[in-house]
């Protein structure tokens, strides 16, 4: 029952008003922002640093909204419940993932921020170039970031398209609207647009999710009844377990690899590097988990959809269909606007992060031109649009999985580079190449699944492919590093990090 419920005019009007208002606010941020903080009106930064990194002056609150806004994307709101809808408790691995990521951020990111501030770096590749003095490694890290973030932007466009389609529009129009709104918003506002509209997105998502987690159980007779009813629609798991035995190791390893990968992406790192101080980041590691509670509630929407009798084969329609089924149509329109704005904010930060990579690290001559950055950001969005048009949505999700495997391979250079290990750049490049090839190869063999079966010393389980590839990468890096150090034993000074080439 309840399949393909159609929205009415009330839903469409509320959606249009909320969505357009946010885009206008974000695009005109340069006009109204000086009104908020007149004392800081004097420009202390180049226009490029202003557009691409918000002038590196975001305090605790803005950072909280910005990092939360671009880490918890609209795709999360659509895809996590979709996964829970189709797999039950297994899809819940997003919760441990978004918890353990914070101790990691607390331990690592303040150090990275300090290095970036001292060296004036805006991207991961900047940091790596300065640390290891290697143009090859810089290119490797920059290309990994670009390739990984492109399908991620594509998924945000798909997120906007999904809700516009749920409003009853068909054909190319929804995608066109999604693309034009994103382009205008980022071109005009720079990083200030998502930073200052992220709070609108959050408030809207909070309202939508809180309404859902309060109203749905009331309809269904409480959470106990909801869980019971949902269990009836899912594959049976024996012995009172929630996750089947064979899925325990995938659950844990996917959570761990996602947590390691999460803040290597250009967009999440941009949010971190735009903070005002290292302590702003530590403070945010304490308070950002508040978003994780909301994420967990969003994941529960997948179970609620079962309990509410939603039957759909297109799992990305689970949440829109649930909202249309349980809410009055004007409020469903509001929730759809929340999802669309929730896609705009991260997609815009992603485009800016990717533009920073192109302008700083990929082009042969470093450029600070803001028009250049805008054009690069626009190019990235056209690339993402191409992903959506020429590849189907299922493939975009697979690409995002491959993106996770690829971005994890920058972990040794960026994160292990913080340790006093003296890793030689050639060893890191070799580890990156072998890790990336192995990871993509395994994904290809497994038919684009995120886990790969491993048997070792009588123990056999499926392990996250990204984590496996990272293991290979680290092993190669450390072994080659030791060999190179032995070979050059007499002249260790050639390996000293920190020589900045340009």
């Amino acid at each position, binding site marked *: 029952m309840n399949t393909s419920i159609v929205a009415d005019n009330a839903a469409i009007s509320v959606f249009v008003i909320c969505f357009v208002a946010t885009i206008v606010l974000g695009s005109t941020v340069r006009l109204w922002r000086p009104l908020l903080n007149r004392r800081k009106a004097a420009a202390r930064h180049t226009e490029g640093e202003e557009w691409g990194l918000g002038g590196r002056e975001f305090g605790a609150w803005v950072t909280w909204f910005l990092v939360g806004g671009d880490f918890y994307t609209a795709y999360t709101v659509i895809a996590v419940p979709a996964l829970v809808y189709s797999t039950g408790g297994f899809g819940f691995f997003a919760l441990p993932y978004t918890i*353990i990521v914070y101790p990691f951020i607390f331990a690592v990111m303040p150090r990275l921020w300090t290095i970036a501030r001292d060296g004036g770096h805006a991207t991961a590749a900047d940091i790596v170039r300065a640390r290891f003095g290697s143009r090859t490694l810089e290119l490797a890290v920059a290309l990994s970031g670009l390739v990984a973030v492109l399908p991620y932007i594509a998924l945000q466009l798909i997120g906007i398209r999904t809700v516009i389609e749920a409003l009853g529009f068909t054909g190319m129009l929804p995608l066109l609207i999604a693309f034009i709104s994103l382009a205008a918003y980022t071109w005009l506002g720079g990083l200030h647009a998502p930073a200052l509209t992220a709070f609108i997105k959050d408030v809207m998502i909070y309202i939508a999710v809180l309404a859902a987690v309060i109203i749905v159980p009331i309809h269904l007779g409480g959470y106990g009844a909801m869980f019971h009813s949902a269990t009836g629609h899912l594959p049976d798991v024996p012995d009172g377990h*929630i996750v089947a035995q064979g899925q325990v190791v995938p659950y844990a390893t996917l*959570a761990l690899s996602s947590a390691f990968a999460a803040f290597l992406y250009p967009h999440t790192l941009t949010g971190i590097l735009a903070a005002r101080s290292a302590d702003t980041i530590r403070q945010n590691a304490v308070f950002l*988990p508040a978003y994780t509670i909301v994420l967990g509630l969003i994941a529960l929407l997948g179970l609620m959809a079962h309990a509410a009798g939603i039957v759909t084969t297109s799992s990305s329609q689970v949440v829109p269909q649930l909202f249309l089924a349980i809410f009055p149509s004007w409020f469903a329109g509001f929730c759809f606007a929340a999802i669309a704005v929730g896609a705009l904010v991260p997609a815009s930060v992603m485009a800016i992060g990717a533009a920073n990579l192109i302008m700083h690290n990929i082009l042969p001559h470093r450029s600070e031109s803001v028009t250049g950055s805008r054009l690069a950001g626009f190019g990235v969005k056209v690339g993402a649009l191409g992903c959506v048009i020429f590849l189907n949505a299922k493939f975009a999700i697979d690409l995002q999985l491959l993106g996770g495997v690829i971005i994890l391979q920058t972990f040794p250079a960026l994160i292990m580079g913080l340790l006093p290990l003296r890793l030689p750049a050639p060893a890191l490049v070799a580890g990156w190449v072998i890790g990336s090839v192995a990871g993509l190869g395994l994904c290809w063999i497994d038919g684009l699944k995120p886990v790969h079966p491993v048997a070792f010393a009588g123990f056999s389980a499926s392990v996250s492919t990204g984590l496996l590839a990272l293991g290979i990468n680290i092993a190669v890096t450390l072994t080659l590093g030791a060999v190179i150090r032995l070979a050059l034993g007499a002249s260790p000074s050639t390996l000293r990090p920190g020589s900045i080439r340009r």
Partner: protein
Amino acid sequence: MKKAIFLLLPFAGLLWVPLYNRHDPVLFGFPFFYWYQFAWVPVTSALIWMAWKMDRQS
């Protein structure tokens, strides 16, 4: 040292899945699997906060 333990506890508590992969005991209608993981959110915040305080003291 104590700081490192604070920061590693959430990893131990959440990545050892057999620890919480069961239905009972149920709390407010939530199976153990779900409320246990939700409970780790405020616990992790508190642990990071304590690590932060220790940083500032030293």
